[in-house]
């Protein structure tokens, strides 16, 4: 009888101990947020364009982590979709929207037509437009992500999306090799002498 009692008490104590241990661990080593969201977000192009239907790249990453489709990012194109699919372990699917042409575009404000309404400034998700009320606005080209969000609110249609041109910095080498063939070396000894 007492053996059984001891066993019961012992097991109860053990259960309590482990329960407390687990409870402590759950608090102490709690993981903030979902780590997969960070990985997904790192893949997304961060244009913050909202074409996926979410207000920014992070919300879309969260949505994917919660089971949304991976094919809603036109700026990222097929390459991004494939990376997202492999990370989530789902089948790649064709993009739901027409994938944007791979040519990168940035916004350009025709400054003499700008009336200084600040609407584009409010629309820009990355604060890449500077200007003040009733004063001309302009786009910081280095920070523009080409998300298109400023074009629609402009009351005077003075914003163009211009493709980024090629320059010496972003030119892709497609150089024809200069082949070297062995030729007979004819030393000009008499000349050297």
């Amino acid at each position: 009888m007492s053996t059984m009692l001891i066993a019961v008490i012992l097991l109860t104590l053990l259960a309590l101990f482990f329960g407390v241990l687990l409870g402590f661990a759950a608090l102490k080593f709690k993981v903030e947020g979902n780590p997969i969201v960070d990985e997904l977000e790192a893949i997304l192009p961060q244009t913050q364009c909202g074409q996926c239907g979410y207000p920014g790249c992070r919300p879309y990453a969260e949505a994917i982590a919660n089971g949304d489709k991976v094919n809603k990012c036109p700026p990222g194109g097929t390459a991004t979709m494939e990376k997202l699919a492999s990370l989530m372990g789902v089948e790649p699917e064709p993009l739901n929207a027409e994938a944007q042409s791979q040519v990168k575009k940035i916004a350009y404000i025709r400054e003499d037509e700008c009336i200084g309404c600040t609407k584009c400034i409010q629309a820009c998700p990355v604060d890449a437009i500077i200007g003040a009320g009733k004063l001309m606005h302009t786009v910081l080209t280095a920070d523009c992500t080409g998300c298109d969000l400023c074009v629609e609110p402009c009351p005077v249609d003075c914003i163009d999306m211009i493709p980024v041109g090629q320059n010496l910095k972003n030119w892709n080498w497609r150089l024809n090799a200069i082949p070297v063939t062995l030729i007979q070396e004819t030393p000009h000894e008499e000349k050297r002498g």
Partner: protein
Amino acid sequence: MQTLLDQLDKGTLWRSPGGIHPPEVKFLSNTTPISQLPLAQEYLVPVPQVGENCTLAVKVGDKVLKGAPLTQGTSIWHLPVHAPTSGTVVAIEPRASNHASALPVNTCVIAADGEDRWCELTPGSIELSNQEMIAKIHGAGIAGMGGAAFPSHIKLNPVSEIELVIINGVECEPYISADDRLMREYSQDILAGIAIIHRLLSPKRIVIAIEDNKPEAIKAMQQAVSQSTLPAGSTRVTVIPTKYPSGGEKQLIQIITGREVPSGAIPAKLGIVVHNVGTAFAIHQAVTQGKPLIERVVTVTGQNVGKPGNYWLPIGTPVEHVLKQTEFNAEAEQKVIIGGPMMGHALPTIQVPILKGTNCILVPSSQEIGITPEEKACIRCGECANACPALLLPQQLFWHAKAEEYDKAASYNLKDCIECGCCSYVCPSDIPLVEYYRIAKSALKQAADEKHQAERAKLRFEARIQRLEEEKLAREAKAKEAAARRQATMTSTDKNAVTEAMARIAAKKAAAAEATTDNATVEVVFADTSNTEAPKGKAAVAAAIARAKAKKAAQGADDAESSKQAFSSESSEPTVQAESLSQKDKVAAAIARAKAKKTALKADSDTNGDTEATVNANQPVAETATSTEADDKKAKVAAAVARAKAKKAAAQQAELSDMAEVQPEYAKQESGSDVESRNELGSAAELSAPLSPEDEKKAKVAAAVARAKAKKAAAQQADSSEVAEVQPELVTEAKPESGYESDSATEPSAPLSPEDEKKAKVAAAVARAKAKKAAREADALSDSNE
């Protein structure tokens, strides 16, 4: 155990891995002294050449003297560019660059005047302080002359201690002999430059490295060293065996010291700095004579050059001129290569300038260069790995680069590839390996840039979200505070005042509603005066509906009595009110409306977009300008916006009433007034003449408010049976007035001032955009209704 310094003094050499022994062919150019070429007609000086942020110091039409700076920069990385000869700046425009792509870069074109007159130079001496010397070298625009064109003053002002300076006279690439000839002929000047480098860096040793295929240069340099004022034993000439690519910075360090520069690091980390002999010469010129870097020795060689040799060429000399002067005979598909045969690049065009890093122009015959052999499959022989001086695995890199798995290629240290071309040279399958690496490298660089951009975008996005949040909180706090203050200060008399004010506003609104009725009538009249244009898009229809609605509603609102009374009084209104109400109201409203309509029309039908729309918008502008007083921009914009909104609302309203089965009447009304109303704009715009700005503004605001009211009323009225009766009335009553309106349409127009034009343009643009939006919405609505 000997120390490194002992071994340097003994001239001990280490073996560098890989490398090849291509035919040198230096005999073509190294037998004649360095000579001058006649001046070119034009010099093409790219601005900037090294470093990005700078401002031009000259403008088109300026006369410049030889050596005058063309750019000014603030960044430490920027090197000033100088005029290569005296002459006139004839253009500053994009011209083809001396680059494998020949993409245009901003270039300062200087037409030589033939005098070649120097600007005033300020010679310095060895007595200058180090800082002054470095400033002088920076100001002279000296870049590394070996090819990479790295700003020299940065290498001469390192943050860490420098123990060893290597002067690179190796010149390992075939064909090139510019440094060889420079060392033979200007050894004293080079040594003077080395002395300056010694002063600035105070290294323990200076080693002048020269390949053993240049015996004359070695002799000349050794002699110069023995005569120099440098501390004995600090400087020596070390002869190294001929092998390509011993002249590479990292390879040379390995040969001289046996130490390897870590991947991604610079030699300064090991306490070593490498300078080219040409750079030493240029430093001497800059410090002791004050001459900026405006010319360099360039080897012009190849079997298709009549006079191969080395020439002093001003920076910016067109390659075309050089080739002409050296009796170049072009053959079919002639290649012109900048740099040597191993690392150089073929030029797509020869109208490009000589740059600070250009050491050779190679014009080979087809015999020398041969046809490009066909690329065959890799047989995994491993020859490339044996030849690679950077100890990479070229076949592995090739594999991944070809499959476009650039991240895998990067994991095989692609970035350490110096693109020397040894692997391509030894490849038995004739694979252009370096080409693959270059493509892979640029793809990787692009990916890295994009990544960086995305990071920045994310940071900025998050910062913005945070800012908006903070602003919102601040606003709320402020509002709360203000409300509390108001509550505290408010007394009973204040409250009375508020109620009185409300009553006044209500009274004003009633008056305004009447004005609307009048406006509406005027509009129809305008429509009658002109009817030549063909029927157009939906925007116009929507606008017309809106107008009709407003009219109807106004009647309803105006007359609280029966519908019979409504139109009986209406028929008398046009004449009475046209005079009693201020004419200004009508005019202001009409202008904006007309503009909106016309542009909406255009926007709808034309596909040309902005340009045409702008042109059209100018039309009303010209007419509006007949007014003697300045147009009030703000008032106009406000009026236009209000109207566009009213239209939008009306469009929605129209759909509602469609459902209420009163459509037949509307359709009639529309086709009657709308088709004709296209040209209304012209006459309307001209009516603006007699307005004063304040009146105009007030009237406009009133009109806008009234319209909004009218629309609301219209919504209530739409269902009623009155509508059917009112419609015909309106049309008939409108007709008689047409005579009066067409008179005003013939008002003379006067030339307009630029300010007026701009303001009017802006107003027109706003109105146009609004109208477009309204039309779009109307479209969408009607679609969904169908």
